[in-house]
């Protein structure tokens, strides 16, 4: 495990999962990979398939319709995989707390979560900080 962690720290590939968000967190994730913030400097790269991913960035309250798909995606990802919940939506639902279409009180009721980055939407700096802190916990 230590060997794996040493390698993964150098270059993590993230996959973006939008689970009924308001789109804003998603757009801010795209902000990360474009010239303004350019996290490819740190070896962080957005990939197209969950089978290549080391980290899943999940946004949004998880609706009933999408919850089975999220579980399926989590199962498809090669383990170990880290899950980061982006935005207050994943933490507790933000303004959608009373929504009838919410599958769980928070994201970690549906799939295991390693880190939450609250904010509505969190600033790109906060996202970078969150991911770097997550990597810091790897030994």
């Amino acid at each position, binding site marked *: 495990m230590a060997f794996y962690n040493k390698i993964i720290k150098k270059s993590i590939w993230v996959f973006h*999962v*939008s*689970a*009924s*968000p*308001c*789109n*804003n*967190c*998603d*757009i*801010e994730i*795209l*902000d990360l990979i*474009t*010239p*303004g913030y350019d996290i490819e400097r740190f070896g962080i790269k957005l*990939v*197209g*398939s*969950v089978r290549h991913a080391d980290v899943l960035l999940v946004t*949004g*309250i998880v*609706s*009933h*319709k*999408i919850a089975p*798909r999220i579980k399926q*995606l989590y199962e498809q990802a090669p383990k170990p995989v880290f899950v980061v919940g982006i935005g207050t939506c994943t933490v507790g639902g*933000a*303004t*959608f707390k*009373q*929504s*009838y*279409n*919410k599958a769980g009180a928070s994201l970690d009721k549906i799939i295991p979560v390693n880190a939450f980055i609250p904010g*509505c*939407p969190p*600033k790109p700096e906060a996202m970078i900080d969150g991911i770097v802190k997550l990597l810091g916990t790897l030994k």
Partner: protein
Amino acid sequence: MSKCRIPLGPFHPLLEEAEFFNIKVEGEKVVDIEMETGWMHRGHEKISETKTFTQSIFLVERICGICSTSHPFACVNAIEDIDNIEIPERAKYIRVLIGELERIHSHLLWVCLAGHFIGYDTLWMWAWKYREPILQLSEMITGNRNHYAMMRVGGVGRDFDNSLIPKIIPVLDMIEKKMVMLAGAANDDPVLRSRLKGVGVLTKEDAINYCANGPTARASGVDIDVRRDDPTAYEVVDVKVIVTPNGDVYDKLVVRVLEIIESCHIIKQCLKAFEKVQGPIINKVKEISPGEGIGRYEAPRGEVFHYIRSDGSNRPLRHKVRAPSFSNIPTYKASCVGIPLADALITLASVDPCYCCTERSIKAFDINGKKIEHNLLHLSRKKTERLQRELIPKEKSLIDGIFDLSLSR
């Protein structure tokens, strides 16, 4: 030739949001396209009934993160429509300023994604580089990069700081210059031209029949724009509506690029006015009387429509939202059929669909996890039947006697 079905989504590297397309192809040619939505449904209209009017504004802001001032704009228009509330002049200028800043960054976002869809990632990165200063301007003016929370019933929540004007003008000049450059590139770059010209044509008749609106309709030669036709704050500025005749993806690009330049002009008019127009930014509204109101606003994607009914309490009794993509998305049927699959993706993206805004439908599951097919017509008939059963009085009244009489004759 045999038909083949290509499923696309809900999680696909190209698509930002979760949506599902069922594309039927014959060889290379698309013969039919169906889509399934409902992945993003969050139930705003129901939640809105439990919030006060001011809280509703923050809620509808979170319908969509990209047009996050269009929904509040239409929502306050609807609430103000109930009581014919007037807003101060300075508030009008601030509303227009925020709305146009949003239009610039939303259109730039479309340009980025369109570049990404045709495999032209350079364009994506460049356009995003120009978008970033706009977000920073928004942060300076409103305090947040997105979700500005500026709209209030009767005005705006935060005053514009006049000392920001010298910082805004250079950014607008830069955007204008870059857009002229982009328009030039679209004109003589063979890659862009060959991928976009004549692709996914939406004719004027189809645009009218499918009730397309916004840039999608304007690129097909339909001259509509709520900012000019039914202005609620926009009467203080001059708006030039851009219309192009052809209806292909190239024209949609042209309309959006020209609209960005036009938005820069509108913002400059506002900035000029801020120095002269001082005064209050909000008319205090104590209560909303019972009644109904509608609000319209030209969002970057088209006309957004809010309907609010109030019963005199402090929260809406019914809140209905109709987003522009709702009528723009079905135009796929007209524009995608008959073109090669490789062009279908950019055509799908060309209307700038926003599924977060659109999704007002839901898939329900019963306790055993079985899908409950919702057919609204069926459900409404069932409800009517149930109501009839409940409402029909048990004992015969005088009026029932008449029917009995006529039957027995």
